[in-house]
């Protein structure tokens, strides 16, 4: 089958899959031939058929974002086969909790100063973590906006997930 000189060069997906890149190829807009590794990673982790189904389930104007997020997750999984991008989520969640606790502790000190009390240095650093804080609650970050992100990855739940999709 001779390729027409007027046809577009095959996208990275069709090049990798060794097939003809049709004009209505769903991958072509998002996997340019200049970025072959992007599709290689995505295909290795998720598979081309799964990606195709996922893109078909998403609105056309959101497909580029979906592909970029899949590419990010695939690259993370290639680099870290055990945790993938979830490792970064774990680190960031811990950082958020730590910052929230420090913020609570500092606010408590301000309240004491406001009432003309000298804050007593705690006997150990652990005493700061004994304060009541708002951190550590699953999905509590965006309650005001009504958009609740998944619960803490750090909750050790070796028994597995429930069907609601949260840990």
């Amino acid at each position, binding site marked *: 089958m001779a390729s027409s000189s007027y046809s577009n060069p095959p996208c990275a997906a069709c090049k990798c899959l060794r097939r003809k890149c049709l004009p209505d190829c769903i991958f072509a807009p998002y996997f340019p031939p200049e970025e072959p590794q992007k599709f290689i990673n995505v295909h290795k*982790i*998720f*598979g081309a058929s*799964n990606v195709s*189904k*996922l893109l078909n*389930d*998403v609105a056309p104007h*959101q497909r580029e*974002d*979906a592909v*970029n*997020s*899949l590419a990010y*997750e695939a690259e993370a*999984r290639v680099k870290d*086969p*055990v*945790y*993938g*991008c*979830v*490792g*970064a*989520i774990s680190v*960031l*969640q*811990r*950082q*958020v909790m*730590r*910052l929230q606790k*420090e*913020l609570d502790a*500092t606010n408590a*000190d*301000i309240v004491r*100063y*406001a009432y*003309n009390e*000298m*804050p007593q*240095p*705690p006997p150990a*650093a652990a005493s*700061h973590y004994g304060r009541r804080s708002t951190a550590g609650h699953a999905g509590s*970050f*965006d309650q005001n906006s009504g958009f609740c*992100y*998944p619960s803490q*990855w750090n909750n050790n*739940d*070796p028994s*597995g*997930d*429930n*069907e609601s*999709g*949260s*840990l």
Partner: protein
Amino acid sequence: MTLKGGATSACAACKYQRRKCIPECLLAPYFPADQTKVFQNAHKLFGVSNIVKILKSLDPSQHAEAMRSIKYQANVRDRFPVYGCLGVIRHLYYQIQLLEEEFHAVLTQLEMYRQHHHQQQQQQQISSMADDVISQLELGMAPPTNALPLFNQMTQPYAMQNSYSSYMDSPKDSVENNSLWIQHLFLDTNNHTTSNNDSPIAIQSQLLLPNSEPLADAQDYDEIHPFFDSIDDRQSYIESKDAYDSTSSEESLKDATESMVENVADNELKSAAACFSLTSVN
């Protein structure tokens, strides 16, 4: 397909694939039969073959954690089909940025409260010390009638003693305040964060610098205050300095003042009183 003979039912993966769930099934421990939705999410994103491929590339001790992350990632993708885990990561970065900004603002506010509190304490101590000195003078030291204006005029030659009194205050307060910041610094160093100019570690290390200056100056007090050599006050100063470290600052300053008053000559007494009547606020 359930097995005959009362054997355990097939896992969700084998049930979905309508195949016999063998005892060596890799996915059986992680997809129990009652979690079909979880398996469907994982299958939709990764596919069974890809999951098995990932597990086979890992050590068996890592299988549990890998499957946990795979299920988490699949569930997040099910809830957020466009952005998936990347959306969660971006949101967490945004949360961290907000928290750091808020933390920085709160630290600034706390510093203002601390300075205000410190100034109030200094003023209270100086006024009480001035009252003590004046009462001592009235008890028979025969001061001149214009003694008080003299105290107020003697500012410049005794700037060092004036600053000396503030140094007497500052080490104790600085130690207390440094311990507060060091607590925060300790909390930060326990949990290492990525380097960032706006990180709490950077913020708190900057806040430590102003507190260190009074400490450094207080160590040089022997060199810049020959006045106290002449009155043989070093011993009483050292005793009073120990008192500052152990007791409340107000009481120890009062005791130190009394001991100093007993050891000085009249004109030197006036100088010392002038020193304590003046407030040096940095």
